């Protein structure tokens, strides 16, 4: 009983924080709401008997990633005075309706039929030992791939942002040169 109450409380917290994240005008506020959402999720993991995942969520997502995000926001942000709330347009309302509809469908999909836990879905992730076994064993390839993915992400960011800036002379395009 107490587990259920905790679960729904945390779930409600997560939803409210998520709404806060996307409705705030000030990016700093959005980021803070995001922290709240991530922490609520971590709580949810804990309530679902997955302490390791909960801990990773707190350390990596809510900790490291959020710190980075806050850094970026604070370095580039010119403050809330540059921002204005946009008028709600038809397409936005339509989008919101579609999102709401999608949410209802999801709830119906999960809630209406009896949810039968699948045979192997329980008891995987309680301990770091089993998780480590999976990461180094069956999912070794995926794990290595994830490493490559991070490398690619770094490379992408660098090429987009700065690398080779010095070698470029100016913005003259060959198109302009020709026409």
């Amino acid at each position, binding site marked *: 009983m107490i587990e259920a109450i905790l679960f729904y409380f945390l779930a409600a917290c997560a939803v409210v924080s998520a709404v806060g994240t996307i409705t705030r005008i000030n990016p700093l506020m959005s980021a803070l709401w995001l922290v709240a959402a991530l922490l609520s999720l971590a709580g949810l993991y804990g309530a679902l008997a997955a302490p390791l995942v909960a801990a990773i969520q707190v350390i990596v997502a809510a900790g490291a990633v959020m710190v980075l995000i806050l850094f970026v926001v604070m370095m580039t942000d010119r403050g809330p005075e540059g921002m204005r709330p946009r008028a709600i347009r038809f397409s936005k309302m339509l*989008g919101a309706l579609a*999102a709401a509809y999608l949410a209802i469908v999801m709830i*119906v999909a999960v809630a209406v039929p009896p949810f039968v836990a699948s045979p192997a879905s329980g008891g995987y992730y309680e301990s770091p030992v089993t998780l480590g076994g999976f990461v180094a064993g069956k999912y070794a390839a995926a794990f290595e791939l994830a490493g490559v993915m991070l490398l690619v992400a770094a490379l992408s960011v660098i090429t987009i942002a700065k690398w080779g800036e010095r070698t470029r002379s100016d913005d003259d395009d060959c198109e302009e040169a020709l026409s």
Partner: protein
Amino acid sequence: MLDLIYQHITLQGLIWLVPTLPLCGAAGIGLIAMFCARSEGAKFRNFASFAGCLMPALSFAACVVLFFTLTGFEATEPSAITGPLFRWAALPTLFVDVGLKVDQLSLVMALMVSGVGLLVHIYSVGYMWHDEGYLRYFALLNLFLFFMLLLVLADNLVVMFVGWEGVSLCSWLLISFWFEDAAKARAGAKAFIVNRIGDAGFLLGMFLIYGAMSAAGAPAESGYFNFESMQRYGIYFVPVATAISLLLFAGAIGKSAQIPLYVWLPDAMAGPTPVSALIHAATMVTAGVYMVVRLNFIFVLSPIALETIAVIGAATAIFAAILGLAETDLKKILAYSTISQIGYMFLAVGVGAFTVAIFHLVTHAFFKSLLFLTAGSAITALSGEQDIRRMGGLKRRMPITAWSFVMGSAALAGIAPASGFFSKDAILWQAYERGHGALWAMGFLGAGLTAFYIFRAAGSVFFGESATSAERYKRAAEPPFSMVVPIMLLATLVAFAGILGVPLAFGGSNMLCTWLGGLIPSELSRAPSEGSRGVEIVLMAVTLLWSLHFSVLGWLIYAQKRDWPQRVARRVAPLARLVSKRFYVDEIYDRTIVRPLIWISRKILWQGIDDTVVDGIAVEGTARAAGLFGALASAAETGILQHYLLYFLIGAVLIVGFVTL
């Protein structure tokens, strides 16, 4: 000699060479004509002349070799079949092979087609030399030869139909060869369309044959349209023989210009004269006769159909001859004469004398192409004058041409010993002997008319005083060597081709008919009556005198007393008008068939259905709808990211909703 040839080529290969050689010529010359601009094409004239004449020559040579091969065969029924070259159509219930067949009948036709074709090609070198479309002309003429040879050599009805349609196509292309002239282009279209009417009958006949064959349970693999298997299962045609015969004959009427579909042939004279000689006198127009003879085993099953054919033939023979009397255009006179002579052939077919029809077909091919070629020379000499009232006296300027024309005229009129005498009298004799007295009388009458109108033409053009301007007359001269040689060769043929069929009554052997007779079952079973030879000789003498009489009359009047006819005509003015207006047949067709059809197609089919329904709604509507949807799809591509995400979300919602609900 033959052994030497067959060391290098099989019999089948040789047969295939006969039609393919002209096709190669057509392709080669046609490609050059297509890819070289007109001015550059002139450089290739010599090549076109060489290749264009060489291919028919080789084809003719192959036919000759085949002839000697076939006559060397021991069997009573010498024939050779290439076997299927390939299976053209293989449906569960219909097999069509492409194959050729050489037997006496098709070989005679092939010899005639390639031989006359060769001479006309040679003649054309001189005749068309200064024409801009020289290459195109030779390509088409070669192509025509290919289709014509395919038609006569086909071993089944479908391949024959391919040739049948192919010659129509070439005829259309060549009649409207000078297509810049709208009238000539229209004449080509007229010929093509009138032919289509007959072809509809031909096709329906083929469908009926298919029905009869499948009902008879004939094995589909052998090909329902194969002549051999058709003949084998011929007995099953009895219930529908009349229908099949009449439908096929409708095709022949169109192609061979018989009543009521003869109207295209006089107009077809708009084409170059050698074309008229080859296509519209010697070969294509007689294809109808050939087809009926080829399928004689069906036609003999239906006495009604044969009777109809004979009557239509005889009627056409007289009717066209009457039209020829009043015509003043030299080429059109010859056209009507062709119609009339083909009428004689159908008369022969109708009374059951198939071989005689082929005999007349061959001699007619010789003398009519001779007449056309000489007429072409005369017309060229007078720089395009075709009206016989403004010609005359050309004998002194061009004697070879003149005497060749006279030789052809004599053959046409049936004056011994020219070849036409033997063939025409054979027809009349067969009609009489088989008990068709009325038909004989019609033929007899027609023979007189024929003699009159052709000597009228001969007298007007080559004899008497010149009715053309003096300087034009002075410039008239014999054509170049390349045109004279074919004329002389043809004249020789016309003079001596009668040997092929000297009747038994004259102590001859009637070679051609006997040789062909082996093919035709009804001819085999018929015993020639012994006691009738006296009658035959008497009738022949009478006909000869009758024709001779009219010939001399025609020649006298039109060479010496040209004002007589005018005076006579004035006295019977309405009749003369009627004849000179060709009995208003063209006008009647125009009012009763052509104009209503045009009205229906323009007002209802074109403006009513095509413009509004098909074009407006179906075609342009589709294009417009596609354009509209395209515009919508493009408009959705706003470039605004939020919109893209919205589409994404809507799509996802629809999919998820579709799957889960």
